[in-house]
C-alpha cells in the first residue's frame, strides 16, 4: 500500500508554459493588480495536483468512513430534529436503552444490558449496565433517562417526535399540557441503574421506539450549562460542548461542509468499535454526490440519480445497492369532493393503473407494485392485496358510479410537489386513466411548502403522498387513517376502522390476533380507498466494496459500531 507517486500534472505544465511570456508581458503594464493576478494564477494552477491517493483509499487504511449525508443537519439535539441526515449522526453520538440488530431489526441491548416485561405487557423494567459512560466520564444513570424524557416532553421545546412517547402512561396528557405533574407519567426510577416504564396499552413495538433518537438520553449538566434545556436555541450541540453516550464523540462540525465524529474511549463497548472516525458530508445534489463517489471521495451515498441506476446495474453492479425500504408512495383522494365521494370511483381509479409498468419503466429503482398500504413483511405482517390491476372491472365500477366510459366525469386535478420524478409518474398515471377510463386529469405542481399547506388544508382533489414508517410495525402505517388523524387529510372516516386500529389491535392478546385486526382494518381501507397505493419504496445507493458490516434492512439503519473497512488487495 502506501501513497502513489505524484502524477504528471498537465494543467500546471500548461499554465507554466503559457503564463510568463505572453500574458505576463501584458500584465506588467497593469502594475497595481499584477501581484494579485500572479498570485491568483499560481493559486489556481500550481496547486492543481497533489497526492493521488483517494479519500476512500486513505479512509480504508485509517478506518475512517466517508459518508454522503444528504443535507446539512438542522441540529444535533435528539429532541428537536426530525430528519434522516440528523439520524445518521446522532446514532453515532448517542445511544438509547436498546439498539437494533441491523440484520434482523430485533432489539439488542444498548445502555440497558437486560430488561423484563410484565406478563400483561404494560411494565418494562430496564437494568442499565454499570459501565455505560458519558463522553466526559460520568456514568449513565436511570436519572439521566428520566430527566431527558421529561425534557423531551416539554411543550416549549417544540419536539415534533413527542408522540413517540405516547405509549407511555400519561405521556400524551403531559406533552399536550393537560397534565402538569410529571410524577404521574409512567416513568419510575427504581435505583441508580434501574428504570421502570409503565405503558398505557400493551405496545409490541415499544422496545423499537427506544432506539429512536427522540428517546435518547441527553447529558443534563451540559444542557444546563449552555442554556435553558426546555427551550430551543441552545448551542450545547456544538463540537467542544457536546457530551454524548454513544460509540463516537463529536470532533468537528463545519456548517455545510463536514461533521466529524471520532471513536469514543468512554463508550461501554469501545473494544468492539472498529471505525476510528466517520466524516459526514452534507451533499444535497445527487449528481454531485455520485461524482464524488466515482472519484473516490465517498464510501457511501444517500441515493443514486434515477437515470444512473440502469447504468450502474449494467456496468458497475458491485457498487449499487437496491433494497426494499419501509415506505410507500400513494395518492390521497379528497373524499369530500362530489366526484370522489363514491368509493367505486376511487377503486376504479386504483384498479386502472398498471403498477408493474410503472415500476419497470417509470421509477425503475427496484420499487414494488403496491396493492395494499402497509409494505409487505413489516415485522411478519403482509396485507392481502386489496384490489388488482383490472381495467375491465374499473370501467364497470366507474359506470356503476354514474360515469359510463368516463362520461360526465368532471375535470379533476392531480397535485404533486415540484419534482421531475413526481411529474413523470403523474404523467404516466394521467395517461393510464385517460386510456382505461376516458377521464381527464390535469396536473398541478406546487413548491414543497405550498403543497404541504394545500394538502393539510384539504385544498386539493387528488394529491401525491409518501410515508416512511417510524418503526417496523403495521401500526406505523395504519394509525394515520383513523378519523381526524393529523395525517389522514382525506376526510375519510370509518368507525369500525378506528375501533380496529385504536382499540382492538393495541389490546390484542397475541401477535396473530393483533395482525388479524390489522388485516381487517387494511381490507376496509382498501375497500373504501381514500388513499390509492402506487408502490412500495426502495432505497438505491452506492457503497464501496471495502465497507463491511452494513447489512440491508427495511429502515436503512446502520449500526456504526459494527461497520469496518477492508481494502481490496
Amino acid at each position, binding site marked *: 500500500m502506501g501513497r502513489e507517486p505524484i502524477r504528471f500534472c*498537465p*494543467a500546471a505544465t500548461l499554465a507554466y508554459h503559457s503564463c510568463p511570456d505572453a*500574458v505576463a508581458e*501584458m500584465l506588467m*503594464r*497593469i502594475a497595481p493588480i499584477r501581484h*494579485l*493576478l500572479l498570485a*491568483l494564477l499560481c*493559486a*489556481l*494552477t500550481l*496547486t*492543481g*495536483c*497533489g497526492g*493521488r491517493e483517494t479519500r476512500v483509499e486513505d479512509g480504508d487504511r485509517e478506518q475512517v468512513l466517508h459518508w454522503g449525508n444528504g443535507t*446539512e443537519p*438542522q441540529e*444535533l*439535539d435528539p429532541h428537536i430534529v*426530525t430528519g434522516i441526515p440528523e439520524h445518521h449522526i446522532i446514532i453515532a453520538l448517542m445511544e438509547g436503552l436498546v439498539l437494533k440488530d441491523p440484520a434482523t431489526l430485533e432489539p439488542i441491548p444498548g445502555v440497558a444490558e437486560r430488561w423484563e416485561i410484565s406478563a400483561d405487557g404494560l411494565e418494562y423494567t430496564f437494568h442499565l449496565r454499570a459501565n455505560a459512560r458519558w463522553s466526559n466520564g460520568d456514568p449513565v444513570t436511570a436519572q439521566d433517562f428520566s430527566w431527558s424524557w421529561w425534557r423531551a416532553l416539554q*411543550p*416549549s*421545546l*417544540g*419536539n*415534533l417526535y413527542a*408522540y413517540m412517547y405516547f405509549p407511555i402512561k400519561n405521556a400524551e396528557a403531559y*406533552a*399536550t399540557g393537560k397534565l402538569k405533574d410529571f410524577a404521574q407519567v409512567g416513568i419510575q426510577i427504581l435505583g441508580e441503574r434501574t428504570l421502570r416504564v409503565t405503558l398505557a396499552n400493551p405496545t409490541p413495538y415499544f422496545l423499537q421506539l427506544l432506539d429512536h433518537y427522540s428517546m435518547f438520553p441527553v447529558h443534563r449538566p451540559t444542557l444546563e450549562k449552555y442554556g435553558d434545556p426546555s427551550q*430551543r*436555541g*441552545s*448551542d450545547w450541540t456544538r463540537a467542544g460542548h457536546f457530551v454524548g453516550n454513544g460509540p463516537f464523540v463529536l470532533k468537528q462540525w*463545519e*456548517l*455545510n*461542509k463536514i461533521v466529524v465524529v471520532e471513536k469514543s474511549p468512554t463508550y461501554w463497548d469501545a473494544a468492539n468499535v472498529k471505525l476510528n472516525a466517520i466524516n459526514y458530508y452534507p*451533499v*444535497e*445534489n445527487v*449528481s*454531485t454526490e455520485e*461524482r*464524488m463517489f*466515482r*472519484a473516490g*471521495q465517498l464510501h457511501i451515498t444517500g441515493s443514486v440519480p434515477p437515470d444512473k441506476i440502469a447504468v450502474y446495474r449494467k456496468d458497475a453492479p458491485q457498487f449499487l445497492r437496491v433494497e426494499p425500504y419501509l415506505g410507500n408512495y400513494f395518492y390521497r383522494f379528497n373524499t369530500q369532493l362530489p366526484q370522489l365521494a363514491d368509493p367505486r370511483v376511487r377503486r376504479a381509479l386504483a384498479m386502472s393503473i398498471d403498477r408493474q409498468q410503472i415500476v419497470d419503466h417509470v421509477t425503475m429503482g427496484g420499487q414494488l407494485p403496491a396493492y395494499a398500504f402497509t409494505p409487505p413483511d413489516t415485522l411478519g405482517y403482509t396485507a392481502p392485496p386489496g384490489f388488482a390491476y383490472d381495467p375491465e372491472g374499473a370501467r364497470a365500477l366507474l359506470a356503476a358510479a354514474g360515469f359510463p366510459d368516463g362520461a360526465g366525469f368532471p375535470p379533476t386535478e392531480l397535485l404533486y410537489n415540484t419534482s421531475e420524478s413526481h411529474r413523470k409518474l403523474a404523467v404516466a398515471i394521467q395517461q393510464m386513466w385517460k386510456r382505461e377510463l376516458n377521464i381527464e386529469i390535469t396536473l398541478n405542481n406546487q*413548491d*414543497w*411548502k*405550498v*403543497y*404541504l*399547506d394545500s394538502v*393539510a388544508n384539504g385544498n386539493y382533489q387528488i394529491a401525491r403522498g409518501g410515508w416512511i414508517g417510524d418503526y417496523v410495525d403495521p401500526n406505523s402505517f395504519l394509525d394515520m387513517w383513523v378519523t381526524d388523524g*393529523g*395525517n389522514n*387529510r382525506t376526510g375519510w372516516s370509518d368507525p369500525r376502522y378506528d375501533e380496529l386500529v385504536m382499540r382492538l389491535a393495541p389490546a390484542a392478546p397475541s401477535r396473530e390476533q393483533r395482525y388479524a385486526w390489522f388485516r381487517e382494518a387494511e381490507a376496509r381501507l382498501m375497500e373504501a380507498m381514500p388513499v390509492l397505493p402506487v408502490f412500495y419504496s426502495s432505497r438505491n445507493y452506492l457503497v464501496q466494496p471495502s465497507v463491511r458490516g452494513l447489512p440491508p434492512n427495511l429502515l436503512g439503519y446502520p449500526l456504526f459500531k459494527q461497520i469496518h473497512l477492508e481494502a481490496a488487495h
Partner: protein
Amino acid sequence: MLRFILYRLLQAIPVLLVVVTATFFLVRLAPGGPFSAEKAVPPEVLRALEARYHLDQPLSAQYLGYLGDLLHGDFGPSFRYPGRSVDEMIFSGLPTTAELGLYALLIALVLGTTAGVIAALRPNTAQDYLPMSAAMIGVCLPSFLLGPLLLLVFGVWLEWVPVSGWGNVPGDKILPALTLASGYTAYVARLSRGGMLEVMSQDYIRTARAKGLPEWVVVIKHGLRGGLIPVVAFAGPAFAGLLSGSFVVETIFQIPGLGRFYVQAAFNRDYTMIMGTTVFFAVLIVAFNLLADIAAVWLNPRLRHQYRKPAA
C-alpha cells in the same frame, strides 16, 4: 467628492428600508409556513414554535420588533437551524463565497479584457470573431451546464482536479472559479472590446502612433486606460452579483458558501434567514454600486462638477 458620497449614503437608507419592508411582508404572505411538514405537526407543538419565534404576535409588532433587532445588527435565530443565529450562518459562509467571487472576478477581468482587447485590435477579422464567438457562448452557457461539463472532462475523465469541495484538496478551487467566471468573462470581453474600439479611433491614439511608438505601447499605455472605463464601472456591481449569484456553482461543487443558504431559506420558509440574506445582499449591492459610482466620478472629471459646491 465628500458631498457626493454623503448624498449617496443618505439615498441608500430609504432603498434598504424598502427592501426590508417588502421582503418582510412578502415572505409572510407566501403560502406555506416555516413549520409545515409532511408529518402533521401537533397543534400544541405548533403553538410552542410560533411563540418561540414571536409568530403569534400581530404582524405590525413582528415588523417593528424585527426592525429594532436589525438596528442592533441582530438578524435573529434561524427557524430551520434552531441552534444557530442567522448572523452566524451568514458570516460562516461569507469568506468562502467572497473568495470564490474574488477569484471569479479576477479571472473575468483578466481573460475578458485580454479577449476584448485582442478582438478590438483587428475588428471584423478572425481575430475578432473567434474571441467574440467564444464570449457569446460563454454568456449563453448556464453554469449548471458548464460546471458539470468541466467536471466531467477535467475531474472525472482526466482526473486533473478534484470533483468537489473547497480548500480540502489542492486544486479544488479551479473549476468553481472558472465556472462562476464564465458569464462575467464573456460580458467583460464585450465591454472591453466596445470600449477599446471607441478609444482606438480617437485622435490621441493617432498622435501616439504618429510619434512612432510601438503598437503594443500604444495599446497598453494609451488605449487601455480609456478603453477599460466601462469595465471598471461594471466590476463593482459584478462582484456583488458574483457573491449573491453563486448558488448554482456552490451546489454543483459542494462549496460551503452563502449562496445555498440564500436560496434554500426561501424553500424552507426560514423567514429570518430569508430576511437576513436579502438585507445582507442588499447592503452589499448598494455598497458596491456606490464604490463603482465613486470610481466613475473619480475617472470622469465632468461628473465631478455636478457635486461641487457652487463657486463663490
